[in-house]
């Protein structure tokens, strides 16, 4: 595929993502009084869309080094949203918000300590002030509880997935791609180490920084997760909409090899 064709495809794809999101934004039941649920739900869908758009816009990231970072983040968005919409939606949405405010308060405290220990910095002070204002716009700092070690909902991501019928996503997407996110051994050894072929060296592994070709498969994985999230929103809102993003990717496949995004070296 030529560069102009690739750019045109990416633009069509991103438009399709936005279209899919906007349909679900409109249909999600809103409550201006108890707005946590629709803010959190539509916000998480928007987050899903942003992740997919940014991945599509950067074809060089469509490889084993980087794409799993996106896949795992998107899987977590879906699991979180599934858990919230499963039951007790208002309270779970509220818990999600409070967990974020808790983290924000803790982060501000760390920054203030840094300023105290290393001296005043105008930039950091400005950052602290902005973040305090953001926090204060939602909740007084002195009324914000900090949960220093716990999870958002008091249950593990695994348990959230089991409860909200996302077991397969957890087992085959979230968990395997966590290896890339956390740079665990089973990712690092495959992608950044290779066996030394010198027989005098006991077969030890040596570090490598391989250039990986990009593959449209990674975009499919992300699109599938995005489509699952769209389905979740449709089910909750009891609405029916087409899947423009998936259709866009399908039509690119159907149009033949000339139209497919070309592999791009990272």
């Amino acid at each position: 595929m030529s560069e102009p064709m690739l750019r045109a495809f990416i633009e069509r794809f991103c438009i399709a993502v936005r279209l899919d999101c906007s349909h679900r934004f409109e249909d999600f039941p809103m409550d201006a009084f108890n707005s946590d649920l629709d803010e959190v739900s539509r916000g998480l869908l928007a987050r899903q869309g942003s992740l997919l758009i940014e991945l599509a816009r950067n074809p060089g990231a469509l490889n084993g080094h980087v794409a799993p970072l996106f896949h795992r983040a998107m899987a977590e968005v879906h699991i979180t949203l599934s858990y919230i919409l499963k039951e007790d939606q208002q309270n779970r949405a509220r818990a999600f918000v409070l967990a974020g405010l808790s983290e924000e308060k803790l982060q501000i405290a760390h920054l203030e300590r840094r300023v105290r220990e290393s001296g005043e910095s105008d930039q950091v002070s400005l950052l602290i002030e902005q973040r305090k204002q953001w926090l204060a716009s939602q909740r007084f700092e002195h009324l914000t509880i900090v949960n220093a070690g716990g999870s958002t909902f008091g249950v593990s991501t695994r348990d959230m997935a089991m409860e909200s019928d996302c077991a397969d996503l957890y087992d085959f997407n979230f968990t395997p791609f966590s290896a890339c996110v956390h740079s665990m051994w089973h990712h690092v050894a495959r992608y950044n180490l290779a066996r030394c072929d010198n027989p005098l060296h006991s077969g030890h592994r040596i570090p490598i920084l391989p250039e990986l070709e990009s593959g449209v498969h990674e975009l499919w994985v992300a699109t599938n997760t995005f489509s699952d999230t769209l389905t979740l929103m449709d089910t909750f809102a009891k609405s029916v909409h087409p899947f423009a993003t998936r259709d866009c990717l399908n039509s690119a496949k159907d149009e033949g090899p000339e139209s497919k995004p070309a592999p791009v070296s990272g």
Partner: protein
Amino acid sequence: MKRQRRVLEDHKQVGKKLIPPFLDAFQNFHEVPHVKLVVPEFIWLAALNNVLGAHEGARLCLEVARPAALCDSQSILATCTSYSKLTPENWSRVVRSVRGLDREKVSLALSPIARLYPDFPLRPLVTESDLTKVNDEADLLWIMELLPNLYDKTSVESVGMMANATYIAFVTDKLKASTDTSLAQFPEVEKYPDTEMSVRVAAAIRCFTNSLVGGLSEEAPRHWPRSFWNRGLELSSCFMEGEE
């Protein structure tokens, strides 16, 4: 409805850990890595076989091990580490016993290792003359061709060196095998891997040599294997196939 999660059902759950049945059954399981430990310990036996042939290699390893066993009745004189415990007096006795053409052959076979690896425990068996025949390139080429075959513990070369170690244990009266075991059919290993019995005997040999090398780690801090592999890093650089 919660999905049933039933993977690794045969594992025993202890807290958050799932213990494999084998580890659960053998609590004090001790790993003996073939490449890291076994290969360096028996490299001298592999060298004898490689340079002199399997029959001569088997014969000459006994010519070395028998007098050495008289000096150290506790150890099985098959591993390099066991030879590192011999005193200079012990070595004089061993060298006197391995005479004439046998000494020349043993020296020839072990000399590349002695020249490349200053810490080689069987260095006293190599004559001064052979030690000074420095030819780094040829020696490196030789050992770089020898070692890859030994990485695979089921290769003919690996089984050959481990068979010699087991032979030493038998002949120096340190190992006895019940008639109903595979190890009792030891001579069959000559036909490895062409007969089923030879394959079973090889498996039994590996069990024995693993326990022999594994037992060493209790007494000696693995000096020779560590020295062997780290010396390799000094002798030549890392490379990957396809690289120039």
